[in-house]
């Protein structure tokens, strides 16, 4: 095992796997065998590397060369050239655009350069299914230190001093939460890992669980020791089969090594964990609904207080933190609270993981220090907006969050700064939008999501969101009325004031922030019956400019309803009655003669 001269770290996170990473890995192994290199070069399947946009990706160590968009077809050439003859293959390397030079080394690629990895420290470096890989990267070293050198009180003090705040969205101080649960009367006590990641387009927790399941287990074990819990539950949504599989493997290995179970590392401390699969309801990310779901009843929130720390699962003291929060814990215990608190801003310490998606060149998973600006995330790490389009806004915090317009791109990532804009930190969804996104349609989309995910317990959340959705749909269809904007604002206030849980309280945020920053778009829809971003089809008209039309008949052929007529080489006309505003003609016209308004 010690003889390998090179390690090929092939990403086998869900993103790369769906692009064929397992086939690429198999082809690599076969091709290496063919050249009798299997004793020299080791292929390792890792968790998500983060650069999903370019998947399947592979890092060659020790050189640090980064290959991207690999296909099975590329492998024989790659193995022969690079691994047999030592000539790295340029055409498989990354370049920001087609015109720019290739960037061979991972550390020089803009996407990776500005990231600071704490929770994702082992991503792309270890095989998540091999416990020794985690141990070799200082895994379970923090637990070792905690069990031999520290008291539970000292652990809580350390976490308090690090000023770590919950990464699930609300940002409650983690150390304080632990202390509440430790002080609570009642036995047994429970530790829960919230892996019910539900925001559309967000995959931070999934990636951690897939790439480094042991770091979450180690974090939970440290938390259990601090609080005095002996049982832990990982609540993971059933839509994450790979995460669940790797977690179960990790639990089994940790049990065999005596790093979980009874008498951990001979310390006398016992901690057992199990995985509970969630049914995928968005509301179950809310902690009281999550506990109900674990108990086997309908996942609906209940009134707080009593807080979970006093009365949690089965009425016993329970401490719930999300996946990313747990993943930070071993790093803090190993490197110290002072180190962690040195990262970030005055009120928000450490780093935050974001799922960077939407109209962005480098979509993927990024971990950035708190205090970085939205502009730097979008342009330096994300590589900007594709196709020379204009940056319009980001939606941060998923359906509970809000949009931040391009003018506020200097806003820094920090719990308080984001809240001031009307958005929230949230769990890490970051959707980038360009000029082709209609903000009314965006608000409608997110409200459609929260409306269908509302559990129905609170009247305003159940019926109020439905009414709001109807109004937004009406505006998008060109039937908006003058009173709609004040009506939306009134409903939004009432829904957030009279809902029991975070789902209802935050559901109006996308509407409120788009109204705050893009009111003119609402007005254009309502008064002028126009969609400035040309998204809402009911508000579009397509006509042909006779001066430009060359009569090529391409539009006639593309039109699905036969709405376009005209003689060859003569100007054509669109029958507005038959036109369904699908836009096909607009895209096929070679001379831009189709006018879209």
């Amino acid at each position: 095992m010690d003889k390998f001269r090179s390690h090929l770290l092939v990403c086998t996170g869900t993103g790369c796997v769906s692009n064929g990473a397992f086939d690429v890995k198999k082809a690599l192994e076969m091709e290496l065998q063919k050249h009798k290199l299997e004793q020299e070069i080791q292929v390792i399947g890792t968790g998500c590397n983060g650069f999903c946009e370019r998947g399947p990706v592979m890092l060659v160590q020790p050189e640090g060369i980064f290959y991207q968009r690999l296909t099975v077809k590329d492998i024989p050439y790659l193995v022969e050239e690079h691994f047999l003859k030592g000539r790295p293959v340029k055409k498989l390397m990354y370049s920001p655009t087609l015109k720019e030079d290739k960037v061979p080394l991972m550390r020089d690629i803009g996407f990776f350069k500005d990231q600071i990895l704490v929770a994702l420290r082992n991503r792309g470096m270890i095989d998540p299914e091999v416990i020794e890989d985690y141990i070799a990267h200082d895994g379970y070293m923090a637990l070792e230190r905690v069990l031999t050198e520290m008291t539970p009180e000292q652990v809580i003090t350390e976490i308090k001093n690090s000023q770590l705040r919950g990464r699930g969205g609300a940002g409650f101080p983690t150390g304080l939460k632990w202390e509440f649960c430790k002080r609570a009367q009642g036995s047994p006590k429970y530790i829960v890992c919230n892996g019910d990641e539900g925001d559309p387009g967000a995959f931070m927790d999934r990636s951690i669980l897939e790439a480094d399941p042991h770091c979450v287990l180690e974090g939970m074990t440290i938390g259990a020791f601090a609080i005095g819990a002996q049982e832990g539950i990982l609540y993971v949504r059933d839509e994450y089969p790979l995460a669940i599989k790797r977690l179960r493997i990790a639990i089994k290995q940790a049990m065999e090594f005596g790093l979980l179970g009874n008498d951990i590392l001979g310390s006398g401390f016992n901690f057992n964990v199990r995985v509970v699969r969630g049914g995928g309801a968005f509301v179950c990310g809310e902690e009281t609904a999550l506990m109900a779901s674990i108990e086997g009843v309908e996942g609906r929130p209940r009134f707080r207080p009593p807080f979970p720390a006093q009365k949690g699962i089965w009425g016993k003291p329970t401490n719930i933190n999300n996946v990313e929060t747990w993943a930070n814990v071993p790093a803090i215990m190993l490197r110290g609270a002072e180190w962690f608190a040195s990262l970030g801003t005055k009120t928000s310490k450490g780093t935050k993981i974001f799922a960077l998606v939407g109209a962005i060149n480098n979509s993927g998973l990024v971990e950035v220090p708190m205090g970085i600006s939205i502009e730097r995330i979008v342009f330096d790490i994300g590589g900007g907006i594709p196709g020379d389009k204009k940056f319009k806004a980001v939606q941060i915090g998923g359906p509970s969050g809000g949009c931040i317009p391009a003018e506020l791109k200097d806003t820094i990532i920090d719990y308080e700064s984001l809240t001031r804009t009307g958005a929230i930190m949230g769990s890490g969804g970051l959707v980038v939008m360009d000029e082709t996104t209609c903000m009314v349609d965006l608000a409608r989309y997110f409200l459609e999501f929260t409306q269908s995910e509302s559990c129905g317990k609170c009247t305003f959340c159940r019926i109020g969101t439905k009414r709001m959705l109807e109004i937004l749909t009406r505006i998008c269809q060109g039937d908006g009325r003058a009173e709609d904007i004040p009506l939306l604002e009134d409903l939004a206030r009432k829904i957030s004031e009279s809902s029991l849980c975070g789902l209802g309280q935050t559901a109006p945020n996308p509407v409120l922030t788009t109204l705050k920053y893009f009111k003119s778009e609402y007005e254009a829809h309502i008064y002028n019956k126009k969609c400035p971003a040309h998204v809402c089809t009911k508000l579009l008209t397509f006509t042909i400019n006779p001066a430009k039309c060359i009569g090529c008949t391409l539009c006639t052929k593309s039109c699905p309803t036969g709405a376009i007529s005209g003689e060859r080489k003569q100007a054509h006309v669109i029958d507005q009655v038959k036109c369904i505003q699908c836009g096909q003609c607009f895209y096929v016209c070679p001379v831009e003669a189709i006018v879209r308004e």
Partner: protein
Amino acid sequence: MGKLTIEELRKIREKAKRSTNLRDAQGKAKITVHMGTCGIASGAREVMDALLDAIDRYGIRDVLVTTSGCAGLCSHEPMATVEYHGSPPVKYAKLTPEKIERILLEHADKGHMVEEYALAIGSEKMS
């Protein structure tokens, strides 16, 4: 696998680190074996095998081995370049399994160049 004590966990960590330190690209020296067609034809494979075998046999932990293409001096193959931390790279020529073992032990591990096998110090300038 029985339950671990803290000492056993530390031992596993040390052992596992040896095989993954390559991944973290941490080493005091790097040996590049030139594996172009010319190198392979004149025995670079055997040199590489001997090198990896020696690293294992002596339990050397922080020397990285990598390959590159033809260095341009095909008549002097098999060749290898040793970069010892903080010193300029040294090119060795006409290598054999015995020679590479000595280079590993004296230069890559301890930092003393093996002058009698060395061809040149430094690298070509890049335009």
